[in-house]
């Protein structure tokens, strides 16, 4: 452990880590928001709307995230939409997360027994009131564990942003080893542990919560 390593590690923590966290958190927020909207729309059981949302979800989940990210960053400028590296990464991760979030929300809403919405309707509530006051409060509890798993997947996937030039912890490592290849092992091990320490508590908490709910 020489001073080169320590200097590089410092740069990873001071410059890279905030970027990794920023990209991950912004993306998971888009995923939760987008997932809620799309998932609730699925509950309307409108055929045209369903087709559009299913198409979106299946396509976004069917293509590799890396291809989506390259498309946003390299492809969209050709169509006249220019985004910098960080926004591109957030857009790609957010769109991908929203597709996964939509499935989570839909699953949770449809897992609430039909009697609940029938009882709500019988009390004279309209569709929106039933959804907001009866279904969602119960469904939200069931969404939390899968959204936590999605957060873990998002943090892992934020590493792909390095490939479009976002200076996250992976990219900082890659830049530092250009001068000194002997740093590959210590630096990569360090960031593996950084990812692990972010993700492991969330993934354990998610498993615990899920077990408690079932």
């Amino acid at each position, binding site marked *: 452990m020489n001073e080169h390593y320590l200097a590089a590690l410092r740069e990873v923590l001071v410059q890279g880590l905030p970027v990794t966290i920023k990209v991950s958190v912004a993306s998971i927020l888009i995923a939760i928001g987008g997932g809620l909207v799309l998932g609730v729309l699925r509950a309307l059981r409108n055929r045209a709307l369903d087709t559009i949302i299913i198409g979106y979800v299946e396509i976004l989940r*069917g293509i*590799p995230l*890396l*291809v989506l990210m390259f*498309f946003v960053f390299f*492809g969209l400028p050709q169509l006249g939409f220019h985004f910098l590296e960080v926004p591109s990464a957030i857009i790609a991760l957010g769109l991908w997360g929203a597709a996964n979030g939509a499935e989570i929300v839909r699953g949770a809403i449809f897992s609430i027994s039909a009697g609940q919405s029938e009882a709500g309707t019988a009390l004279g509530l309209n569709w929106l009131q039933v959804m907001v006051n009866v279904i969602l409060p119960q469904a939200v509890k069931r969404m939390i564990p899968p959204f936590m798993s999605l957060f873990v997947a998002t943090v892992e996937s934020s590493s*792909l942003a390095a*490939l479009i030039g976002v200076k996250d912890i992976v990219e900082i490592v890659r830049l530092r080893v250009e001068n000194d290849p002997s740093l590959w092992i210590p630096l990569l*091990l360090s960031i593996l542990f950084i*990812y692990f320490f972010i993700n492991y508590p969330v993934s354990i908490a998610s498993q615990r919560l899920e077990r408690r709910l079932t």
Partner: protein
Amino acid sequence: MLLVGIAGAAMRTSRSAPARTLATAFAEFFRNTPPLVWIFFFYFALPGIGIKLSAFTAGTLALVFYQGAIAIEILRAGIEAVAEGQREAASALGLSPLQQFVNVVLPQAFRISLPALGNNLISLLKNTSLISAIGTIEITGIANDIIAIRLSSAELYLTLGVFYLVCVIVLSAMVRVSEQRLSRYGS
């Protein structure tokens, strides 16, 4: 991937504490770290300690470990879902622990785990795209490539996306067919 999953899940559910700890640590560590960083590790870092792998081998190994770690968890859940009586009955018939696992518990666990394993297989297919990152970076940094790629186009990535999509749709159809086949044998 499947072999790593089966071996790991067997260890995770075994009665030997060291085996359990080892398999749990392996599964938790790989599951919670990005496969891209593992690909870098196998390809760029291992030569530092004298292990030189080709891009293909390094990429494949990294993905086998990552998806294998997920398969361990999936199969563990499957094994735990198999009724305890099944193993007891097998043991009453005089089967050895290995025979109990291979002939009685695993086939049933496999059927329970099949949908999740199918998803894992699809995710493996998509993650193969990450291996290209090694090639990208090898050519002295990304900058050169960005220039090269900027000249190519949106169509390229659309085509690539469609290609993956077709593969994924075919694969999920295959998974669904095999689920239906297996569910015929009662549940």
